[in-house]
């Protein structure tokens, strides 16, 4: 079931930066073959921020990995910036990634940043790969630092010498320094405390002004509600609901979306929510 609602974006004739149509992904072979994504269709307009929400095992990370070419789709199409990438081989993917059109940020920057590479080298690398000169890369890295609120003193540090929040800002900077058209962020703020979380969200909100499209993946509707234009809810491998953020929160259609909204910790929690959650859980598990 898919309850599509009119997108919040104005109907412009622009080409979507990402278009996923009837995407299916299976894991395992023969008798152990298991469907992880079932006919997922989603289109992301340039400059748009979309939150993909789902629980553990819902397929949200698989969707991200399929879009990045890390997992092969068994059916459907993925079009990135006008290019059908579904049939791309290793070398074509490398060429696409090298252009820096699509970038990604993962939850744990300690694992995605090379522990032996300084912040400066880490940030310059994607530019050098693109063929930018060393001098220009260094200048662009320095110019970008301000936008992610990192001080130039940190350039000589290793990831291990940074705080968690600084590290995640480095990861965000590295993804955005090439001015990509699409950035996929998989649980980018889940491991951060309040002050850092707010700071990262604020930075991302500002960076959107450059026209970059963001895909935010999270289990928590609350952590993306403040930045996402649209919310897509993934449940058991299917996109069960897509709509403008305010609509999804205020009039959730699918029982799972309703449970998500009622489960997100808010300052307005009411005793009645508990009974409603109970009823929704019973409904979903039936």
């Amino acid at each position, binding site marked *: 079931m898919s309850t599509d609602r009119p997108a919040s974006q104005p109907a412009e004739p622009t080409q979507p930066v990402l278009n996923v149509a009837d995407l299916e992904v299976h894991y395992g072979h023969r008798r152990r073959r298991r469907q992880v994504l079932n006919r997922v269709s989603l289109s992301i307009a340039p400059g748009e921020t979309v939150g993909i929400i789902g629980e553990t095992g819902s397929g949200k990370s698989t969707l991200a990995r399929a879009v990045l070419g890390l997992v092969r789709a068994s059916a459907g199409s993925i079009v990135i910036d006008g290019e059908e990438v579904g049939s791309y081989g290793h070398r074509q993917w490398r060429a696409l990634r090298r252009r820096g059109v699509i970038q990604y940020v993962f939850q744990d920057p300690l694992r995605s940043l090379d522990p032996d590479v300084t912040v400066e080298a880490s940030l310059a690398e994607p530019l050098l790969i693109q063929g930018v000169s060393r001098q220009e890369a260094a200048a662009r890295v320095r110019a970008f630092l301000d936008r992610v609120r990192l001080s130039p003193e940190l350039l000589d540090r290793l990831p291990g010498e940074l705080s968690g929040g600084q590290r995640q800002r480095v990861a965000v900077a590295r993804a955005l320094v090439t001015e990509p058209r699409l950035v996929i962020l998989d649980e980018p703020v889940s491991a951060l*405390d309040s002050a850092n979380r707010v700071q990262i969200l604020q930075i991302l909100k500002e960076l959107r002004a450059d026209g970059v499209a963001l895909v935010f993946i999270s289990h928590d509707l*609350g952590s993306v509600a403040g930045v996402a234009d649209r919310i897509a809810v993934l449940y058991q491998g299917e996109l069960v609901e897509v709509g403008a953020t305010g609509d999804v929160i205020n009039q959730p259609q699918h029982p799972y979306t309703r449970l998500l909204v009622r489960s997100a*910790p*808010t*300052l*307005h929690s009411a005793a009645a929510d508990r009974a409603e959650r109970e009823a929704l859980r019973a409904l979903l*598990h039936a």
Partner: protein
Amino acid sequence: MATLSEKVLTKSARNSKTEQNGSGAEVEDTGATSTTSTTGATRPVRPAAPSTPVLSVRDIRISDQAAGQEIVHGVNFTLTPGRSVGIVGESGSGKTLTCRATLGILPAHFEVTGGSIEIDGQDISGLSSAQWTALRGATISAVFQDPASYLNPSIRVGAQIAEVLKVKKGLKRREARRQAIDLLHAVHLRDPELVYSQYTYELSGGMLQRVLIAAAIAADPRILIADEATTALDVTVQAEILDLLADLRERTGLALVLVSHDLAVVAQLCDEVLVMRQGEVVEQGPTHEVLHNPQHEYTRLLIAEHEQYGLDKFLGTDAVEPAKTDALDTADAVKEDA
């Protein structure tokens, strides 16, 4: 006097979802009633707790003896049966050290250097390790963030709960097994018999946390400390665990200390909130007052996070006044301050 697990068990056997009127004896017993408000507008009202505190923490100070500096600079709160206190703060704020001091499990070279803690009227400062062993589990118990690391992966989870019952309540094997299954039922696990015979790797994070809660309440403690117990879980599962804790509190008069970095998690369940930062309690008060009228900039930041970036941005604005400061300025100010 009915023990906690008996109360849990009889209630769950009765399969009653809401507080029944016939539980007068237990209400007297715990000294606190809970009015399950269905309107949602009013906060649960409790009678002015006549009972004596089960836990009182008075101006507790904790120092790192190796570094020679004080880490926690005085925390105060008291907890009566059926009530709950929430401690909110970022990592390194001293919230976990405070809990560990209460449980007598401070890490090496950390010591309580001031103040006092009383559990059920008993000062814990001079307790021998045998006395601590008697107290832990039976009077005060805890669950932590990563449930899998507190269970032995090579022993069936049910046997690990039965172990508590054998040691703490002196039950025989068969009776321990029966009660362990009842406890798994009481924490709303769907197939208690099956879960009893499963290993940790066969269970999800939410199920493991339920197993740990079952083990934690097996010996009928009066106080349960939940230190970031829902942090690693999906929001929907987090809500399930919080609902379970609320349920246990209402049904059995269990007193809760809930520790979280998320103010909203604490607000959902707690009567009183302590906001900690760098070992200092920067704000403390009844939950609704802290939410409505935050005094400290750090509390305002915690609220702004939800109002500007969370669901609260879209939900009704009747309950909480908007934070006056811009979240980012506050974030920067808080950071610079650090």
